[in-house]
């Protein structure tokens, strides 16, 4: 059982599956990254706010003495130190009567809430207010307003870095997926190639190799069974076709040949004559039609029987055939009538010489049943296009020429001539 060697090459199934896998992978990573970014952003903001609240508490502690002793310079120095922190927008120290004691810079953000203590954030900023206490006595408050642009920038940078890593990872995954899927789908690809090869070459003798007893293995088995059935059907069909072809050829032969002499019959002659006339007319050549009638054939039949007559016909056919070129065609039109088609004869005299040779060959002594058969041949000739370019008329003219030869004496030949008619 021949098995076509497999050569796995990337097909659309592998690429499509790789693309689908990558799409799902990229989509999942994208959604995960988005969710992680949202959670990170949320928790980072909360953490930032919590840290700001703790730092503001510390600042309030540090500012208590300055506020108590009205040391504005010390308070501003404290604020300046604090303002060096990243993301701090402005700081303000309020006295109990809400007069600004110190600030950094001079113009500060308005209070977000009228409360002694709060910590609030919006999308890009946060504000924390804490009371400044000294020995359980509230002597003022400090308000810190911070930007979250730095946090946002850090998160965006992280996302960008993560995005680059994901792109590199996806590129590596695509190569790996392609390899893995090509390996995993190799049996399927091989099966597809097998079917493709069988369909293209009409060769169902090939078989797939079952590597594992999985779905693909079962599919290979079913395909092998299918190929086997098709192969049997194909062989049966081919056999039937051959038989039919042989029968047709036999029928064709029977239809176009004379079973006695093996020569082409009248039916074939009637097909070939118009074709030959048309051919020489197109090629500007000369066609000679020789109409041959055996002399004394009736005598042979009557005296020595039809068996002898049939044998005479076979011998005559062989003798005349031996005088012809391969391109010349000899027909038995029926009874003791024969015809010869000579194409591209060049000179009409050559046809006349051939007719003489045919007559001489027939007249050679022929012994049957211990008797010399008295058969001869009379030949009438007509030429295309000299005499006619019509097949039926040409045949009629050759027939007339043969009768002219008969009238002139047997074992002779005549060329068609209008004058003699």
């Amino acid at each position: 059982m021949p098995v076509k060697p497999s050569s796995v090459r990337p097909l659309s199934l592998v690429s499509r599956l790789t693309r689908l896998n990558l799409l799902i992978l990229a989509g999942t990573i994208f959604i995960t990254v988005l969710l992680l970014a949202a959670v990170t952003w949320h928790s980072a903001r909360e953490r930032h706010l919590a840290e700001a609240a703790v730092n503001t508490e510390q600042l309030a502690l540090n500012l208590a003495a300055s506020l108590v002793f009205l040391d504005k310079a010390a308070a501003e120095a404290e604020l300046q130190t604090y303002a060096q922190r990243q993301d701090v927008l402005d700081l303000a120290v309020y006295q109990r009567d809400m007069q600004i004691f110190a600030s950094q810079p001079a113009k500060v953000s308005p209070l977000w809430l009228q409360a002694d203590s709060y910590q609030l954030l919006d999308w890009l900023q946060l504000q924390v207010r804490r009371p400044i206490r000294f020995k359980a006595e509230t002597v003022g408050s400090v308000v810190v307003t911070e930007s979250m642009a730095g946090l946002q920038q850090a998160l965006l940078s992280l996302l960008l870095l993560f995005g680059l890593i994901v792109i590199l990872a996806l590129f590596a995954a695509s190569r790996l997926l392609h390899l893995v899927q090509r390996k995993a789908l190799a049996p399927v690809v091989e099966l597809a190639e097998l079917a493709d090869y069988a369909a293209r070459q009409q060769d169902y003798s090939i078989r797939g190799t079952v590597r594992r007893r999985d779905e693909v293995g079962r599919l290979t088995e079913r395909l092998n069974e299918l190929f086997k059935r098709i192969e049997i059907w194909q062989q049966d069909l081919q056999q039937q076709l051959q038989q039919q072809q042989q029968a047709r050829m036999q029928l064709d032969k029977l239809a176009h040949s004379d079973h006695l002499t093996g020569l082409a019959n009248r039916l074939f002659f009637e097909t070939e004559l118009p074709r030959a006339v048309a051919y020489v007319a197109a090629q500007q050549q000369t066609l000679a039609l020789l109409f041959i009638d055996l002399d004394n054939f009736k005598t042979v039949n009557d005296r020595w029987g039809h068996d002898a007559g049939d044998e005479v016909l076979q011998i005559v056919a062989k003798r005349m055939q031996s005088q012809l070129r391969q391109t010349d065609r000899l027909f038995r039109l029926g009874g003791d009538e024969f015809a010869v088609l000579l194409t591209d004869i060049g000179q009409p005299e050559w046809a006349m010489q051939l007719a003489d040779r045919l007559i001489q060959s027939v007249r050679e002594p022929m012994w049957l049943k211990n008797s010399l058969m008295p058969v001869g041949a009379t030949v009438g000739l007509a030429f295309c296009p000299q005499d006619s370019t019509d097949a039926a008329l040409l045949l009629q003219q050759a027939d007339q020429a043969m009768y002219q030869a008969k009238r002139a004496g047997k074992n002779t030949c005549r060329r068609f001539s209008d004058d003699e008619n």
Partner: protein
Amino acid sequence: MVRLRAICLCASVLGTALTPVQATEFAADEFSLKATFLYRFAQYTQWPPPPRSAMRFCIVQYPQLLQALQRLPIQIDAKAIDAGPALADCDVLMVGLSERRALQQWQTWLAGRQLLIVTDNAEAYRQLGMIQLLTSPDGISFQVNLRRTQSRQLNLGSQLLKLAQQVD
């Protein structure tokens, strides 16, 4: 003008129930500001055990400051003293006198006592003061003699020391 604003600020940061009217009354009073500072000095100071249940402010020859202390919107135990025996139940001593001989006498009385001694004159600070209030056009500031406070086993708060104009 700057000093007046400082006084207003001080009044506003002190106490829990100062009204605008009361603040105005204090506005022109430099002694009120000094009284406030005195009160805050006591708050930033840690005495050795046992802990004080109530803080007593003793004032030596400084009736204006005594009045200012008594006018503060919080309850303060303050009294004027003129001799050493009265020091027994004092925690903070505000010295208003500047006479050298008198100061030497007080130095004798104060020997071994754990008191926070505050003054606003240079001579008193030189002889026995721990904290001196300094008046300038920009307001009131102070300097600290840390060695004396340590010798009397008193601890001044770091925030207080940080704000001091000078620490000896």
